[in-house]
C-alpha cells in the first residue's frame, strides 16, 4: 500500500461524512425512499449522505438516474477522464470529501495518481499531457465562471483531440459535481480517519 496523498488539505484516503441533519431510518423508510436509494447504488441504504437526501425521494430518484447516466454511460469520454473532471470541480469548490472519492476512482481506472497530486497542489497548472491540461482548464472555467465559457474553449479541447461526445461528457461531469459538491458541503462535513489507525 502506497502512502496516501495529503496535499493542501485534500487527500485520496477513504473519508467518512457526518450529516448535520437527521437521516431517514431504513427500517421505516417508504417504498419511494427505498426505490430512490436503490436507484443510486447498492450501498446507498447504509450511506448517511444518501439517507439525508432520501427525505426528498423524488428529487433523489431523478438525481440518481442522472448521476449514473453521466458517470457510467458507455463510449464517449473515458471514465477516468470523467472522474478527473469531477475531481477538478471538487478541488476548485473545496469539497474535500468528493475530491477524495473521485481521486480514488480516477486511480482505480487510470492506475496512476500523478495528475491527482497536481490537481490537489494547484489545479490551474495540472495535467500530465496537453489533453489532460486542456480537460483540467476547461473544468476549472466551467466550474468557476460558467458564464464565460465560449466556442474558443470548445475549440481548445478539439485541438487536443477530444470529439464532441467527449466534450459533452465532460460538460455533464463538471456540471454534475457543481451539484454534488454543494450538497456535500452544506448538509454535513467530512470526517478524517484517526492518524495511525
Amino acid at each position, binding site marked *: 500500500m502506497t502512502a496516501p496523498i495529503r496535499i493542501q488539505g485534500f487527500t485520496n484516503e477513504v473519508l467518512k461524512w457526518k450529516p448535520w441533519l437527521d437521516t431517514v431510518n431504513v427500517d421505516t423508510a417508504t417504498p419511494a425512499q427505498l426505490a430512490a436509494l436503490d436507484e443510486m447504488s447498492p450501498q446507498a441504504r447504509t450511506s448517511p449522505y444518501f439517507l439525508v437526501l432520501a427525505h426528498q425521494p423524488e428529487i433523489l430518484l*431523478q438525481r440518481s438516474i442522472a448521476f449514473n447516466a453521466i458517470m457510467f454511460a458507455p463510449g464517449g469520454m473515458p471514465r477516468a477522464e470523467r472522474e478527473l473532471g469531477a475531481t477538478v470541480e471538487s478541488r476548485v469548490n473545496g469539497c474535500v470529501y468528493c475530491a477524495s472519492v473521485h481521486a480514488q476512482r480516477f486511480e482505480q481506472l487510470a492506475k496512476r495518481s500523478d495528475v491527482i497530486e497536481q490537481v490537489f497542489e494547484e489545479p490551474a497548472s495540472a495535467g500530465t499531457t496537453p489533453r489532460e491540461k486542456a480537460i483540467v482548464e476547461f473544468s476549472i472555467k466551467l466550474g468557476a465562471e460558467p458564464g464565460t465559457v*465560449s466556442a474558443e474553449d470548445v475549440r481548445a479541447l478539439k485541438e487536443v483531440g477530444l470529439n464532441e461526445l467527449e466534450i459533452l461528457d465532460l460538460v455533464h461531469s463538471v456540471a454534475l459535481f*457543481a451539484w454534488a459538491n454543494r*450538497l456535500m458541503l452544506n448538509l454535513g462535513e467530512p470526517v478524517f480517519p484517526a492518524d495511525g489507525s
Partner: protein
Amino acid sequence: MTNLPEALPAIDVVDDAVPLAPNQPTWTLRRQRDKVVAATQSSHDAMFSHAVEGLTRTERLLVALHACRVSKAPKLAAHYREELAAENADAAVADAVESGDIASLADGRLRAMLAFAGKLIERPIEGDRAAIETLAAHGLSTPALVALSQLIAFLSYQIRLVAGLKALAAAEVSA
C-alpha cells in the same frame, strides 16, 4: 398520490435556454446521452412541477431566479421569471429578487433562503452548520432543508450544462 403535477412543462428547459432546436447538430449530439436529457428534465420537474414538502412553489422559483442572476445566466433567469408571472407571484418581490435587492424584502424566511442560496452558489466552501441552523430557526423542516439544498445544487448543474451546450453550439456555427 401526493406528487400531482402542478404544471406540466411543454418544453425541455435546457434546450430552450441554450437555445437548441431539433435541426441543430448540438441538439442531436445531446440526444446521444438521452438518459441524461430525460433525468435532467425530470429533476427540473421534481423541483418545480410537483409539490415539495416544506417549500412553496413561489419560494422555489424565487430561489431559482436569484441563483441564475448571481450566476449571470440570463436565459434561465428569464425562464424562472416567466414561471413566477404564470404563478401570479407578487411582482414587487420578483422585481426585488431580479434586481438583487434582497435586503428590501419584508419576508425574513425568504431573505434567509436567498442569502443561503447566494452563498451556496458563489462560495460553496463557506457552507456551515450555522447556516442550516439559521434556516431551521426560520421554520424550515428537515425535508425543506434537503429540498432547498438540492434545488440550489441542481441549479448550479443546470446553469453549467446550459453554458457548456451554448459553447458547443457556438463552436459549430463558427467551425
